[in-house]
């Protein structure tokens, strides 16, 4: 569904992503794991259109979307849940969800109900300013906000960052649920253990290059991965 072909991205003279090629099949959960600075975030930010690639192509369902602006990418059906959640703290929970549907002109009532069904907590707090939510609730809001654009693919940048283990488990259950309902997921994580457990396809990214790939289960059993990422 999403094809990344020999992607190279530079930041201020430093090549952060050095030619990676991978594919995200429809309705699957794909994960990129890797250490800090391996180029995971850069990859997602490039797909989302925030960063322009130096080289390589990105195709969505056969259509070249390389270098499009972020709003065009969103309208094509790719959304990014940014690292650190980045909810709008002064806007209410409901406004945050509405702004997720910014580009849509049709009725968002059904999607709002869908998000509230996935995260009943958000419904209780819909009139609260998003900045007053706990970290876990903010993560739910960030995911809900992304879903409001009705994405084909939802990309998530470190959704477990800074959350308590129990909350992390909740988030991963939701990721699986969203995927079961038909949304393709591209997930990057430092929490390799959790990510590999739910992933259909997994890649290991090391200093800008893909070094390993397989199903989540295969990589969980891989000696190298165990040593480097599962500790």
């Amino acid at each position, binding site marked *: 569904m999403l094809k990344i072909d020999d992607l190279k991205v530079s930041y201020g003279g430093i090549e952060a992503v050095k030619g990676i090629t991978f594919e995200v099949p429809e309705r699957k959960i794909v994960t990129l794991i890797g250490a800090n600075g391996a180029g995971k975030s850069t990859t997602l930010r490039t797909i989302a259109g*925030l960063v322009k690639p130096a080289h390589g192509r990105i195709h969505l369902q056969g259509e070249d979307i390389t270098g499009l602006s*972020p709003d065009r990418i*969103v309208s094509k059906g790719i*959304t990014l849940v*940014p690292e650190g959640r*980045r909810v*709008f703290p002064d806007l209410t929970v409901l406004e945050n969800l509405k*702004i997720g549907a*910014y*580009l849509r002109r049709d009725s968002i009532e059904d999607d709002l109900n869908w998000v509230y069904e996935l995260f009943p907590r958000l419904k209780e707090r819909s009139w609260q300013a998003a900045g007053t939510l706990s970290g876990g609730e903010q993560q739910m809001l960030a995911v809900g906000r992304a879903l409001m654009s009705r994405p084909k693919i939802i990309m998530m940048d470190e959704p477990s960052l800074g959350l308590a283990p129990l909350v992390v488990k909740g988030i991963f259950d939701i990721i699986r649920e969203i995927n079961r309902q038909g949304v393709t997921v591209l997930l990057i994580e430092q929490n390799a253990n959790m990510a590999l457990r739910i992933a259909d396809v997994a890649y290991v990214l090391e200093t800008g290059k893909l070094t390993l790939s397989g199903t989540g289960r295969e990589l969980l059993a891989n000696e190298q991965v165990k040593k480097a990422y599962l500790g």
Partner: protein
Amino acid sequence: MDLTTFFQSCVTSVSIGSAYALIAIGYTMVYGILRLINFAHGDIFMMAGYFTIFAMSNFMLPWYVAIPLVLAMTALLGVVIERIAYKPLRSAPRMSIMISAIGVSFFLENFATYLFTGLPKSFPGIGFLQIPMEWGSVKLQSVSIITPIVTIVLVVALMTLVNKTKIGMAMRAAAKDFETAQLMGIKINRVISFTFAVGSVLAAVGAILYFSPRPMVYPYSGMMPGLKCFVAAVLGGIGSIPGACIGGFIIGAVETFLVAMFPTLSGYSDAFTFVLLILMLLVRPTGLLGEKMTDKV
């Protein structure tokens, strides 16, 4: 000070204060979204004065044609300035864009001198703003009553726009976090242009109301009111629209009453505005309604 002077000063301070409020909002809105003090804002205000002169005195347009035209031209000027002088510096350090703003300010002042000469031009009379009124012993022109009414209507409209509409929501989102706003599909440049257009329209309304009871416009007419309204925006808490209004009224009241109470100090009335700024910055740097300074990441 007798009662007549007191009431007279009240009317004057409300009237001038609301004109200041309209201009101060432009500073605060642009700061809110770009974290930029738009030093050219006072000169946009001055240009609006000249646009009115040209529309009404040179082209003899009636006010109901001239005013919308002036508002549109000023909005366009604000948007064009942003495109040319600020947009290319979007990812530059904040100091660069500030210097660019000072440059635009000088440019507009000199450009106006070149185009319109340095000689003051008289501001055209707009009939409905100049009806003499009398209330007991207090004498005033209708503009003193119309200015606060127009300001209140515009501020309410603006608050509704910011808090209740989709573009307003996009403005608030962009003011907090450009990048995430982009991920929502918001076209940042369009939101910024819109902000400049709204700020400039308010400055144009302010210019018409401010210049109407005054005889002349000259190329540096925007400097002092511009600086005072910047002070007003800081007093009220820069970034906050209600704050800018309150700041405008405070500055208007302080300078009017100072002159009324101590006529010998009238030459220093501008200086007191800046003393007020310094005191505010010492006591409460974020202003009356300002939020804690949070840097945009």
